[in-house]
């Protein structure tokens, strides 16, 4: 959770908020300017960074979490052990940059910025009439505020809003600061789309549920996993871009990644809170029966973790391998560089279990 300075003077047990409150940032002593672009968030009088739209959002999330705890329900925990390592790892990425091989890293950083921006699609997630689909009351929960500001705040954080840049622009700024506004490889989007072309729309895991509800929960679970796994990306980005051996602006670029990381905390917290609230409730099915929220959320998380841990590491390796042979030609000794990269590789085996297997649920 972010620092207490993110919070307004709000009663800790207040559970209901207006949309505008959840979108409110308050004022800053100084704005955040990244690479000449005005971004969201800013600095307080002490110079500490304060995330956008947290003045009410953070106290609200804390209050909803406290209520869950009072009612005896645990918060959903996504196991960090399931998080695949970033490829290339920090040492490999630094080695490439030190040898003048910039394209793979520039491409990776650009893809990160685009994927961050894509997070804004959450504002278009349709929220069904939850009161009719959930057996227990939902007043005073995160669940009741999804369409009332939480999704919109998340979207604005990721892609920017009006005259403020968001995480997409902040990642671009970090890249441009560290690597001095590098030329963006022309194949960035083609590689992204190529990966998508191979994917198929999965079958509905819970066809007995209202489709809009199932879709909303699936998206929330997916985004939560992505957000948690992104912590590895933040760590990678911070360590690489704040390394003075490869970064032209180690302090500024590293700070930018740190700001993004701080902004992401509210996303993880509201998503896990709302999903935990579903786990603590009962859902109505389209045929008039009921289903435990826990079985639905855990089933969705299991599927996502299983797919992500299986596909993501290999995708990253395939992407890099495709471009590396060509990219290393700019290095003084391409073959030696490839050998050194191989020696720095990190072994990683996906966990045998996600911890959310249906039998365990």
């Amino acid at each position, binding site marked *: 959770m972010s620092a207490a300075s993110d919070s307004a003077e709000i009663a800790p047990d207040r559970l209901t908020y207006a949309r505008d409150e959840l979108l409110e940032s308050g004022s800053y002593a100084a704005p955040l300017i990244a690479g000449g672009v005005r971004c969201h968030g800013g600095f307080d009088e002490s110079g500490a960074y304060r995330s956008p739209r947290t003045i009410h959002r953070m106290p609200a999330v804390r209050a909803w979490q406290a209520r869950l705890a009072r009612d005896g329900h645990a918060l959903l925990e996504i196991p960090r052990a399931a998080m695949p390592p970033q490829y290339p790892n920090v040492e490999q990425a630094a080695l490439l940059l030190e040898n003048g091989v910039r394209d793979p890293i520039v491409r990776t950083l650009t893809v990160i910025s685009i994927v961050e921006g894509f997070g804004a*699609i959450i504002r278009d997630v349709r929220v069904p009439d939850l009161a009719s689909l959930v057996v227990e009351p939902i007043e005073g929960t995160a669940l009741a505020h999804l369409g009332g500001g939480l999704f919109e705040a998340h979207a604005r954080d990721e*892609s920017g809003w*009006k005259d403020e840049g968001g995480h997409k622009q902040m990642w671009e700024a970090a890249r441009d600061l560290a690597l001095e506004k590098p030329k963006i490889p022309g194949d960035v*989007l083609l590689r992204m*789309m*190529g*990966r*998508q072309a191979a994917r198929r729309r999965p079958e509905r895991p819970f066809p007995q549920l209202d489709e809009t509800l199932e879709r909303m929960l*699936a998206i929330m679970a997916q985004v939560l996993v992505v957000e948690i796994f992104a912590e590895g990306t933040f760590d990678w980005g911070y360590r690489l871009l704040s390394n003075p051996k490869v970064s032209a602006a180690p302090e500024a670029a590293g700070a930018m990644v740190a700001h993004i990381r701080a902004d992401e905390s509210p996303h993880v917290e509201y998503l896990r809170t709302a999903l935990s609230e579903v786990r603590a409730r009962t859902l109505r099915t389209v045929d008039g029966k009921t289903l435990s929220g826990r079985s639905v959320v855990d089933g969705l998380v299991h599927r*996502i973790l299983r797919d992500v841990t299986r596909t993501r590491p290999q995708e990253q390796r395939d992407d890099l391998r495709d471009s590396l042979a060509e990219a290393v030609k700019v290095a003084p000794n391409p073959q030696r560089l490839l050998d050194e990269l191989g020696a720095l590789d990190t072994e990683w085996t996906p966990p045998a279990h996600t911890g959310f297997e249906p039998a365990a649920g």
Partner: protein
Amino acid sequence: MRVASLAAYLYAIYKLPALARRLLGRAKATDRELAPTHRRAAAAILATALAMRGVMIKACQAIATRADVFPPEMVETLKQCHDAVPAKPFAEVRAAVERELGKPLGAVFARFEEAPIAAASLAQVHGATLADGAEVAVKVQYPDIEEIVRTDLRNLERLCRFYEWFDPQPLELLPLLQELTRHLGYELDFRREAASADRVRAIFADDARVVVPRIHPEHSTGRVLVMERVSGIKITEKAALEAAGLDPAEVVQELMGAYVRMILAAGFFQADPHPGNLMVTPDRKLILLDFGLAKELPEGYGLGLFELMFSMMTLNESAMIRAFQELGFETKTGNTDTFLLITRRMLARSESGSFEGEFTEEMTDELFEAIRQDPVVKVPSDFVLVGRVFSFLSGIAHTLGHRANVLAAMGAGPPG
């Protein structure tokens, strides 16, 4: 001059009655009252286009894909231009093919269908079987089309110059005409078309959902193109698609995905996506035909277009202004407020914050309308062509009753 006669006729049937109504203090004619006029106008436009072929047919094809802009009577009538242009007699076709290949028809083809599969603005297509048994489609350029196009363009240039003299605040039509002239030059060179088809096929090398017919270069020339024969359902035939078990919404999304991949990701695209050039197979493969008008964008332009679309759809105004500038838009004063005004008009159309593909319909239309109304903006020609393509795509989506989501096509779609 046919075009001038047509213009005078259209002026007479639309403007004079409107003027009379105004003078008599009567309300504007309703759509229903105008329907017979639209039918008469469409018939006149079609007759002129079919007589002139070439450039006029290209214009009709554009109108026929914009059911959201033009009245249904006009769209329905002008649809004939997509693939129902009256064919040239087979004797002329045979002579043209033999002249181009330098040998009798029977020396190359075991069978050659006298009735064309389709006839379009610059060429017609016949089914045939090569000597080795391969089923092919043979695209044959009309023998006299180069001269017709040259004459049409000369006439259009005169009209544009007259318009610019006549209208005190004219649209800058001449640069657009120059662009059209350049593109028609490309379309008349079938060797270039063959190379473009190969290039687009390579873009989809890892995606079996998109089919680009293979070219037989050994039997092709600058005016005759021999390619693999493929068959499918015309993309705007909604009932036929549904009868084949295809979901029109998915077809629209696949189509958008293919074009987003070509334009934004690869920077090279088939720039003539009228329905006659697009088919779908019953196993849900999209067939792209006719690469006469293919366009290569400058390096990085696709990413710039993506940034513009993305910033528009995420309501990020500052990012929009940067994207406009990076794409080459200019204002005479250098003041970026103009971009902001244009983009705010577009945002007003998506104030809901919707990500659901609005760019391809309302936002595209609003963008061009805003640009058209603000003469200080210089629009890069590459952008005009891309805008035209998205306009065609939105017309097709509209015909099928769906919208295409650009971001989902990029892979941003939420998990199913």
